[in-house]
């Protein structure tokens, strides 16, 4: 087992990783930008290195300084968290080249799965259902039009290197398609430095269901149940659940086994997530694979009792999985609300600044992951997520009631947060019935805005 791990991230996920490492008796090294000196991830690590100024390209993406920190601190392994360098194949390679175990899949697998078209092809060949789509990148509009005719409208144009909702355009008619094609290319070029796009049949208002998997370095893989991630605002997840009301035991088995098949075909190792679209008929399609720990991993932890970060570390250290598929038991229901520093009344504009009062909810079935506290000044340079509130209940109804209670108790003074937004979601009758899809937030929660 590793003696020391460097956490190449910040905020709640860095602290999350430090906590699990500590429980395993592993020393931790934090990195931080000049803006993050007061974050708890810096305070609770055994060592901490400032790696640059606030700008993330000069600190949390500053590979030389991060690797130097690992060298001078005598680290064995590097955990990338999510975001920043977590899906950067080059970083994974530099880690290895310098003798540090990268806690995640290999650079080759990462690069392969990072290319959406290639990933889809691989999955299709492995027998994982994929959405009918253009086999690779499109050469021109005509090719796009031919393809759209073949699978039928609506279709969606997507950036080959994309993610996070950028470089995506839906076309309902042939007339739409020309515009969508051009816009998607322009956006792709601007955002990902590559104008390559591809096209897919568009599933209207699907559910976004993802399957958590864990694969060791000896070829054993298990799935840990799904997460319901349909609740999104502008393609950003806002609230996640496990299990999903739309997934029964038999569908879970089908999706889980497909996910493992795909992951093994890719040569995947460590924790990963396969995102599926699920339509109303119970058909599911591979969307993409996230080659890192996800923001929403705690809901899976709450229902399985596993600590996914510990599992990641054990797999990276070469240990075989300690449990088999039949040992995985989903118990109860978990919900996560992402608490962001954002002002609802101003179109979710970020609200960095000092937190004056801070009171965390407590009691049965409540978990909070955060690196902030009363008096902490949320810096304006990074993501607006500053806390994750997760609840567990014996069933979905109890989890919903508990989340409402917890949101009522959660007091953050000094900045606007998305707590009131979540309260609205938790009181919505469609949500309570489980009648949700990726259009839910726009249709039922933001309709008055």
């Amino acid at each position, binding site marked *: 087992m590793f003696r020391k791990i460097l956490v190449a991230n910040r905020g709640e996920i860095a602290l999350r990783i430090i906590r699990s490492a500590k429980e395993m008796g592993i020393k931790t090294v934090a990195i931080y930008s*000049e803006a993050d000196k*007061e974050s708890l991830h810096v*305070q609770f690590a055994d060592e901490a290195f400032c*790696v640059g*100024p606030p700008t993330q390209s*000069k600190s949390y993406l500053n590979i*030389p*300084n991060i690797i*130097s920190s690992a060298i001078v*601190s005598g680290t064995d392994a590097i955990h990338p968290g999510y975001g920043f360098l977590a899906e950067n194949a080059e970083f994974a390679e530099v880690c290895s080249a310098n003798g540090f175990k990268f806690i995640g899949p290999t650079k080759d697998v990462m690069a392969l799965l990072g290319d959406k078209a290639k990933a889809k092809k691989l999955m299709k060949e492995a027998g994982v259902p994929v959405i009918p789509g253009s086999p690779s990148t499109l050469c021109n509009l005509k090719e796009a039009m031919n393809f759209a005719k073949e699978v039928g409208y609506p279709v969606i144009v997507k950036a080959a290197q994309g993610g996070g909702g950028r470089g995506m355009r839906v076309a309902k008619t042939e007339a739409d398609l020309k515009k969508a094609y051009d816009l998607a290319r322009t956006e792709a070029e601007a955002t990902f430095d590559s104008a390559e796009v591809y096209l897919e049949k568009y599933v209207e208002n699907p559910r976004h269901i993802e399957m958590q998997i864990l694969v060791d370095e000896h070829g054993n893989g298990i799935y840990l149940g799904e997460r319901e991630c349909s609740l999104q605002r502008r393609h950003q997840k806002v609230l996640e659940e496990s299990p999903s009301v739309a997934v029964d035991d038999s569908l879970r088995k089908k999706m889980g086994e497909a996910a493992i098949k795909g992951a093994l075909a890719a040569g995947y190792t460590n924790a990963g997530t396969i995102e599926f679209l699920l339509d109303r008929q119970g058909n599911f399609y591979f969307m993409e694979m996230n080659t890192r720990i996800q923001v929403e991993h705690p809901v899976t932890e709450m229902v399985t009792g596993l600590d996914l970060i510990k599992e990641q570390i054990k797999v990276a250290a070469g240990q075989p999985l300690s449990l088999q598929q039949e040992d995985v038991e989903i118990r109860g229901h978990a919900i996560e609300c992402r608490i962001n520093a954002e002002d609802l009344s101003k179109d979710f504009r970020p609200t960095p600044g000092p937190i004056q009062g801070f009171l965390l909810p407590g009691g049965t079935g409540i978990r909070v992951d955060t690196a902030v506290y009363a008096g902490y000044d949320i810096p304006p340079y990074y993501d607006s997520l500053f806390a994750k509130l997760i609840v567990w209940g014996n069933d979905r109804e109890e989890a919903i009631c508990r989340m409402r209670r917890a949101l009522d108790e959660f007091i953050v003074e000094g900045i606007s947060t998305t707590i009131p937004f979540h309260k609205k979601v938790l009181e919505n009758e469609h949500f309570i019935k489980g009648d949700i899809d990726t259009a839910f937030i726009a249709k039922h929660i933001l309709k008055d805005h």
Partner: protein
Amino acid sequence: MDLRDVRDLIKLLDESNLAKLEIEDPNGFKLILEKEQSQAITPKRPVPVRGAESVLDDHKKLEDKIVARDIDQEMMTITSPMVGTFFRAPAPDADPFVKEGTVVEVGDTLCIIEAMKLMNEITSEFRGRIVKILVENGQPIEYNQPLFLLERV
């Protein structure tokens, strides 16, 4: 002094970091304004602090290059532009580039920082006398860590 002046003074003190203001004029007029004893305005967070902090840290402003910061008009700190290991000499048995008391010219090498197996020479951008070397030979250093105290000459 009329009420208007007092109001202005209250406002001034309020916005300042001062704790107390006392005025006495030759005519015998006297005014004392005082803030609360406890600095409870920004309550110190319940967070463990690792090691003592240099006062100098408060001055951090510049980004991403060798930084020299004025402490007063004549003193400044040279900080590290990168994470790595600090070496005072080009080789273990060589003489150090500088000692306390050494007067350096612009462009003189002050130290080496080893980062990812590369030896980076850190040179001075100012003429001055090394007043203090703030880190030990072979010590790991982080970005922007103060290395030398330099007095302009």
